[in-house]
């Protein structure tokens, strides 16, 4: 029988078990909405301190990695005139995650596409910008085709020195970790929460959950569809889920052409592949984010890549392509 940790007894009841501790926080960071939930037995560690630690971590990562602040570590690196630059460990770690994602996707999730992203119209934050109409954008978008790696393979020119904490790249190469930062950071936050009974970290829709309590009382996670409303619900008792899509950060360029933030490295323009959103499950948020982003860039023919761990994709016809395999037993679709 599932325990109900919030059960409380009237004051004065003898032998009543002490209620659990719970802390939660919702806040804006990384240009999106974030949430942390931590539960602990009454005799366990303080969940409030853990939530505060996660928020501090997210704040520091944002401060160092944002491309919208000229004095962030990332932008100082991008402006540096030296080929080799010593960086903060957190920056090095984030770049390492981005580089690993690039290698795993053979250049599809490319951290060097920042100039192309800016040229497409994403030079300023779009946190408060209203998205362009998705259906109209689809009508005016170019021919659909799968994205592909950049022909020049410039991402291979970036080298990280783990011991020296250095980044070496040709001067002028601009780096951005936007494609992988939230998943990477959710995993970093998760490392702070392992002692707790039940916890969840949600960084703009990239989620990681865990704790023995989540196995008996899983988190109900809705998968938001591209046109409003959920397209599925997952009961997640461990691991991660992430969604990538073109429905939110989408705009019209001055010439009227629609654009969004997922860049096809081979063309340097927004990728129109026929998929609108992709949701992937994986043991870590970093893996889930990579899988979701790469699947979306590869298009409908690549949706089967979700099968080993589960996930779903929504195409331009509104068709939900679902893979519900759950070999690890960490999640299941809710009816």
């Amino acid at each position: 029988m599932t325990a109900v940790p919030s059960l409380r007894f009237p004051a004065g009841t003898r032998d009543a078990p002490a209620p659990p501790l719970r802390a939660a926080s919702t806040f804006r960071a990384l240009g999106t909405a974030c949430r942390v939930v931590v539960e602990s037995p009454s005799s366990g560690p303080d969940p409030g301190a853990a939530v505060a630690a996660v928020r501090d971590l997210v704040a520091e990562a944002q401060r160092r990695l944002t491309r919208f602040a000229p004095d962030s570590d990332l932008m100082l690196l991008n402006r540096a005139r030296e080929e080799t630059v010593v960086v903060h460990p957190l920056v090095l770690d984030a770049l390492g995650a981005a580089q690993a994602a690039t290698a795993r996707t053979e250049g599809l999730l490319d951290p060097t596409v920042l100039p192309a992203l800016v040229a497409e119209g994403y030079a300023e934050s779009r946190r408060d910008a209203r998205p362009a109409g998705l259906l109209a954008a689809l009508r005016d978008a170019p021919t659909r085709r799968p994205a592909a790696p950049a022909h020049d393979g410039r991402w291979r020119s970036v080298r990280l020195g783990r011991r020296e904490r250095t980044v070496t790249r040709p001067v002028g190469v601009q780096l951005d970790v936007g494609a992988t930062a939230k998943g990477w950071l959710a995993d970093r936050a998760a490392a702070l929460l392992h002692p707790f009974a039940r916890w969840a970290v949600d960084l703009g829709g990239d989620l990681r959950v865990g704790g023995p309590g989540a196995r008996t009382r899983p988190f109900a996670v809705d998968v938001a569809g591209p046109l409003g409303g959920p397209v599925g619900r997952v009961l997640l008792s461990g691991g991660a889920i992430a969604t990538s899509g073109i429905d939110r950060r989408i705009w019209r360029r001055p010439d009227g052409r629609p654009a969004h933030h997922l860049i096809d490295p081979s063309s340097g323009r927004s990728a129109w592949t026929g998929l609108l959103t992709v949701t992937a499950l994986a043991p870590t948020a970093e893996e889930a984010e990579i899988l979701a982003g790469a699947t979306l860039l590869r298009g409908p023919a690549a949706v089967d890549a979700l099968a080993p761990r589960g996930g779903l994709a929504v195409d331009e016809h509104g068709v939900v392509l679902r893979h519900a395999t759950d070999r690890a037993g960490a999640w299941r679709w809710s009816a």
Partner: protein
Amino acid sequence: MHRVTPDPPAPERDAAPPGDAGERARLARALQRRRFRRRAAIATAGSTAATFLVVLVLLGARVASGDDPRLGTVASGAATSTTTSDGSDATSGATTGSEDDGDASSATADGDGSWDDGTSSGDAGSAAASAGDAASSSPDLTTRSS
């Protein structure tokens, strides 16, 4: 619920014969009425117990199926709260600055009205959580593109 108490026997006073035989007949009828009432009481209690068991089995099946009893709405705004074992509540902290402007603002403990925030005492927190458990349409979290 269907009626389980039977109608009483047909009127009998006027039909009672005189003398001892009549007295015995009245006693027999009184005994019969008591038997009717006892059977009706037993039937009512049994029906109530059966209904309770059915509800219990259905609830048990739902929990066993893994449905998450925790429910609520995805919150907006900024807040941090902590519910403690002694019923006290609320640890608030400063929000992080946004990705864009780096501004920071203080958060309140009752600002977002989410399923586990906004409590002012342990009992209130319990009530909120219990209310959340009762509804099954709201998710704990939402994954979306961002």
